[in-house]
């Protein structure tokens, strides 16, 4: 629930809170208003009741006085005395009828001194006469106005009676009379004359026996309906002599609210009142008024509340919601990358401060962005420069490389071409081809030319090889060849030289050698032939042997043994170095550039192999060349 509340928009939240805040006092107000109007109702009801009961009592008193006056009047009617004395019933009857009509009396009763009824306006048997007790009292001289109950058709009824005693001139009681008025509907209606909103009822022995009448759709009807419930306690309270007010509002069948009071009706002392007059004041108008009041108050409260909320809403909208919205959208735009965005929020409150801070923040970001951008651009520029420089350097290096390669290739070609021609022509001359011929001396000179040219070619080849190896331009072939066959080629070549020098030569081939291996046959041959020719060169007598065998499953070994002059220990360190020979005399005696072993070592290393020497001066030397079966393409020389 709290989450739902939290997620409402701010102005809605505030309005909701306000609504609740208003609802409470509004409810209290309404509650009080209702209570007040209820009190008002009750109070006015009470005052009305008091008013009405007072009036009723007054009227009753008035009516009693009226009755008493009527009695007095009748008492003084001429001829009454004589009529009673002479027992003139007809005469009395006439007087009585005339009197009852003019005096508005319901019943007339005249009796003699013995209590015998002389005239009776009631038809016999219809209604009861005033009680004998009253007659008796009257004859004794009691003149009063009192009430008595009488049983008649339809139930009990209450009557008001005025009694008078008649005396003659001598003061002797000769008789008396009673004037009776029924306290019936008509009586009550009369009592209720011009009292709007008041209903009267007579309760006798707990039952409603008479009620004031009002005009109805089917003629006059009792105002207090038959289902009127009499409250026993109130009735009883009234019977104890005081007016009993009903503190609660009673409702009629149609829902009309009434305030009622029970007024005890005085009777003879020994005829205790068992009657009460119920006065009911119709509170409908006041109730209606109250309803209108409450409704109006409610409507007013609602209107005020709504108005207040509308005002609050608008106020909030302008001072809070809109500004927050402005902040939010500006923040969103800034967040989306538009760092130039600023929010235009005036005001010193928290929102204004927030707006100000946000603007500064955006400004900061913008500045940083710009700085970053500038730095980036500078960086990029530098990178581009460097790249260009590097590119340039690379291109220069590449160019240099290319030039070197070209140079090497060109040198290679240029050096070899004339040497090839020399070899070609000298061989033609030597073979006396193409019309060439020579004598012995010329022949010797030809031979010297050839020998030197061969030497030169050898030197050139060595130089070019070293050049290539040194500059990393060596490219080794990866072609299959047969090690055994290669070895045999070397053997046949060297065999000739060995024969010439009178040295023995033999070849040993390991049967476990693979039929084919992958590598550069030419390079391997160069190394092997170099070692072998060295062996021959430095051996005067004895034997040179070539041993080719497999070492494990990954490589092979070429071993050249000779029984030559050997290599002194100190020289073994540097014989592989460029241009180093054992000593100066060696180079002159044996020739060679001193590059041969260098080339062997470097080539071996380039292939991933190695060459080592063992030697003993005067006994001979053993050169062992170890090579792997597969040679990876080596473009750069390992150290």
């Amino acid at each position, binding site marked *: 629930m709290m989450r739902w509340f939290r997620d409402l928009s701010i102005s809605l939240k505030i309005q909701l809170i306000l609504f609740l805040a208003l609802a409470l006092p509004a409810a209290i107000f309404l509650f009080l208003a209702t209570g007040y109007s209820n009190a008002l109702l009750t109070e006015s009801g009470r005052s009305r009741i008091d008013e009405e009961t007072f009036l009723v009592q007054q009227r009753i008193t008035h009516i009693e006085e009226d009755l008493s006056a009527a009695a007095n009047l009748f008492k003084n009617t001429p001829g009454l005395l004589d009529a009673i004395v002479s027992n003139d019933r007809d005469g009395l009857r006439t007087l009585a009828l005339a009197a009852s009509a003019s005096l508005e009396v319901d019943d007339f009763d005249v009796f003699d001194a013995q209590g015998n009824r002389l005239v009776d306006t009631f038809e016999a048997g219809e209604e009861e006469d005033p009680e004998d007790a009253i007659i008796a009292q009257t004859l004794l001289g009691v003149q009063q106005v009192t009430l008595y109950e009488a049983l008649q058709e339809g139930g009990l009824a209450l009557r008001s009676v005025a009694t008078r005693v008649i005396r003659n001139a001598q003061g002797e009681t000769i008789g008396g009379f009673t004037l009776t008025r029924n306290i019936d509907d008509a009586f009550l209606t009369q009592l209720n004359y011009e009292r709007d909103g008041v209903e009267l009822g007579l309760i006798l022995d707990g039952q409603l026996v008479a009620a004031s009448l009002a005009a109805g759709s089917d003629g006059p009807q009792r105002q207090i309906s038959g289902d009127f419930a009499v409250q026993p306690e109130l009735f009883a309270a009234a019977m104890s002599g005081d007016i009993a007010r009903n503190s609660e509002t009673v409702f009629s069948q149609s829902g009309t609210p009434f305030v009622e009071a029970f007024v005890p009706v005085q009777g003879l002392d020994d005829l205790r009142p068992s009657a009460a007059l119920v006065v009911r004041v119709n509170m409908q108008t006041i109730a209606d008024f109250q309803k209108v009041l409450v409704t109006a108050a409610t409507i007013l409260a609602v209107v005020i509340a709504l108005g207040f909320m509308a005002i609050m809403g608008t106020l909030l909208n302008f001072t809070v919601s809109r500004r927050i919205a402005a902040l939010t959208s500006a923040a969103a735009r800034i967040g989306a990358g538009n760092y130039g965005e600023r929010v235009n929020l005036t005001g010193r409150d928290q929102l204004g401060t927030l707006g100000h801070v946000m603007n500064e923040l955006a400004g900061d970001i913008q500045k940083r962005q710009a700085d970053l951008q500038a730095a980036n651009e500078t960086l990029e520029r530098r990178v581009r420069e460097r790249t260009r420089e590097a590119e340039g350097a690379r291109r220069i290096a590449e160019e240099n490389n290319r030039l070197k390669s070209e140079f090497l*290739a060109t040198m*290679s*070609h240029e050096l*070899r*071409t*004339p*040497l*090839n*021609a020399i*070899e*070609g*022509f000298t*061989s*033609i001359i*030597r*073979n006396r*081809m*193409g019309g060439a011929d020579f004598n012995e001396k010329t022949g010797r000179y030809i031979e010297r030319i050839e020998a030197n040219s061969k030497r030169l*070619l050898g030197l050139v080849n060595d130089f070019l090889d070293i050049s290539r190896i040194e500059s990393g331009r060596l*490219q*080794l*072939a990866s*072609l299959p060849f047969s090690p055994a066959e290669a070895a045999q080629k070397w053997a046949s070549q060297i065999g000739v030289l060995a024969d010439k020098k009178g040295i023995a030569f033999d070849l040993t081939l390991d049967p476990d050698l693979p039929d084919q291996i992958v590598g*550069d046959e*030419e*390079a391997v041959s160069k190394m092997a032939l170099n070692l072998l020719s060295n062996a021959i060169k430095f051996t005067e007598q004895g034997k040179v042997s070539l041993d080719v065998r497999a070492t494990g499953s990954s490589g092979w070994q070429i071993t050249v043994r000779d029984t030559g002059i050997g290599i002194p220990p100190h020289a073994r360190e540097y014989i592989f170095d460029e241009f180093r020979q054992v000593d100066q005399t060696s180079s002159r005696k044996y020739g060679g550039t001193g590059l041969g072993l260098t080339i062997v070592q470097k080539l071996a290393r380039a292939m991933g192999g190695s060459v080592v020497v063992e030697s003993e001066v005067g006994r001979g030397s053993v050169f062992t060349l170890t090579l792997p079966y597969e040679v990876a393409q080596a473009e750069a020389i390992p150290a």
Partner: protein
Amino acid sequence: MNHIPDNLLEGWEILVVDDEPDSLEVASVILDAYGAKVHEAGDGAEALALMKRARPMLVISDLSMPVMDGWRFLSAIRDDADLMYTPVIALTAHAMPGDAQRALEAGFNNYLTKPLTVETFMENLVLVLMQIPMLAEHINI
């Protein structure tokens, strides 16, 4: 030479192509000494023109030549309907390993390496020619 008869290449017409005149001459002299009729050309274009006229049974060509080098010369021969079956042998200069392999892959029937000396040239030539069926039968051994 020892075992190679002087009339080995009797009746052969051979075209030799090389931009180096000395190289060309050495080859010519040697081939001529063994009885062949030698045609000479200094570059591929010249050689092609010559081939159309003379129809030699064998071509021996250097690889690096101006105007049209050995490679283009060979592909021109192989593209020509009349000339495509002519055996062509490359003269490789020993510079790079794999040159020989490349020559064979390009379509040369075989190769010989420089320098050409009387001894080496003929021995190797015989071996090479023995492997070309079309020519093997013409060798006078």
